[in-house]
Structure formats: C-alpha cells, structure tokens
C-alpha cells in the first residue's frame, strides 16, 4: 500500500467529477442543437449524455485479496461509460425551421436545463468535498515528515 493511496483515491474522484461537469457543459451547450447526428440521411437532435461511475477495485484481484483477509479493496472511483438519455425529443411547432418535418414540427434535444443545473451543483459540491479530503491527507503526510524533528 502506497502512502499516496488516499491522495490517488481523491484524485480519481476529482477526475470523475470533472468528466461529469464536462458532460453537463456539453449538454447545456447543445440545448438547442437540432443536428446532433446523422441517422439514415436525416439529422437527429442532440441526445442528453450521462456519466456512469463505478467504484474502482471490482476486479478479480481485489475480490481475491478481500477473501484472503487483506484489505486493498478500496481505491477510488472511475467513469466506466457515457450513456445517452432515452427520453423522447420534444416537438416544437416552428414551420420556418430548416429541420421542421412535414407538419411543421421540429424535434428539440431532450436536455432539461433544470436537471443539468442540479447535477452541476451536486458535482461541484462533490468536487469540493474531495479537494478537502485531499488537503487533509496532504496535511497528514506533511505532518508525518516532521517526525523526529
């Protein structure tokens, strides 16, 4: 076990929260994007993206270690996947829009700014908590260097 294990754990969380914020920014930026991707020669609106996180250490080796009584089962968090939200697109009546269908309706992205803001705040708070944890660990390590002085 490295003495920097705790710092690495907090660092992995900072990375994960940063990815979440990036994805939220992307969602917010594409709130009105009607040309997200081309499917069968037709433009589809942007789909809201979400981040899937998982605790690190779900591998075989950590289960073996746990069964053996050793305790190296904790080592942070990781982003495993970025998934798309399947909520249907919202149809808005706007016949002049270049992407309007025959009835004059345009499919808009399924991004809800309210949801995104709530996620963003939650993500920011988690980021701060992890920075605090990392500073605490750093303080402890620096204190350990004072032994015998």
């Amino acid at each position: 076990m490295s003495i920097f294990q705790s710092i690495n754990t907090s660092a992995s969380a900072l990375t994960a929260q940063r990815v979440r914020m990036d994805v939220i920014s992307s969602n917010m930026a594409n709130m009105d994007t009607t040309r997200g991707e081309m499917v069968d020669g037709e433009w589809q609106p942007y789909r809201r993206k979400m981040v899937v996180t998982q605790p690190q250490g779900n591998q075989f080796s950590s289960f073996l270690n746990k069964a053996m009584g050793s305790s190296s089962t904790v080592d942070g968090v990781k982003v495993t996947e970025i998934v798309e939200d399947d909520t249907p697109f919202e149809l808005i009546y706007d016949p002049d829009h270049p992407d309007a269908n025959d009835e004059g309706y345009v499919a808009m992205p399924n991004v809800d700014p309210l949801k995104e803001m709530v996620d963003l705040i939650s993500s920011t708070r988690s980021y701060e908590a992890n920075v605090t944890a990392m500073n605490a660990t750093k303080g402890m390590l620096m204190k350990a260097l004072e032994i015998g002085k």
Partner: protein
Amino acid sequence: MKLFSNTINNLEQALSQSTTKQRVISNNIANVDTPNYKAQDVRFNNALSNEMQKLQANKTNNKHFDFGSTSSGYQITNRANTNYQHNGNNVDIDKEMTEMAKNQIHYNALIDRLSSKFSSLKTVIKGGN
C-alpha cells in the same frame, strides 16, 4: 535495557491505523455519487479478538497462505444501519467529513507524541545539553 520502550511501537501502530482510516474515508467521499456504492468502515481488532481468531494449523509448505484472518489488526466492513439514497448509495457526507476532521486531529496528536518522545530521548542522549 531497551532504549526504545513500547511507546514508539504503540504510536506507530496507531499511526498506521489512522492512515488506513483516512484511506477509507477518502474512498467513501470519492464514491459519494456512485450508484449502489456502500460506505465502508474500519474496525480495529483488539488483542483479544486477534487471539480468538487464531487458527491452530500447520503449514506444510511455506508458500501456503497464512491461516486465520488479518494480521494487520483491522478489517474493512460495509456500513450497515444507514438509509439509502434513491440510487442505492449510503455515503453520509456529513459523517464522513466529521470523521475525517477527527481522524486528522488524532493523527496530528500522535505525531506530536512521537516527536516529543524522540526529543526526550535526544535530551537523554545529550545529557541534558
């Protein structure tokens, strides 16, 4: 006569426990938004339970794993008896931050004790000069 009494060993062990606790708390905080993550806790075994967990068995090959459980004096368990959030996560951030603050003070106190132990040894070695 032994120059180093048991104090240093005890402090060393306590420091190692405190480090482990910090590691587990960091991990809980890191996974505060992870769905289905269960918060972990460190339990430190006392001497009695260590003795009771010892298994009487002989190793026929020194490559075999040790019998009995942890020799490290602690085990990491999942925390029970707490409410789950809607996503199956049961990390209580207030509790974790409090535990971390406590642990930090504990750790600093241990380091202070250790340092002063060394400095008093130094005083003795220098004959009070």
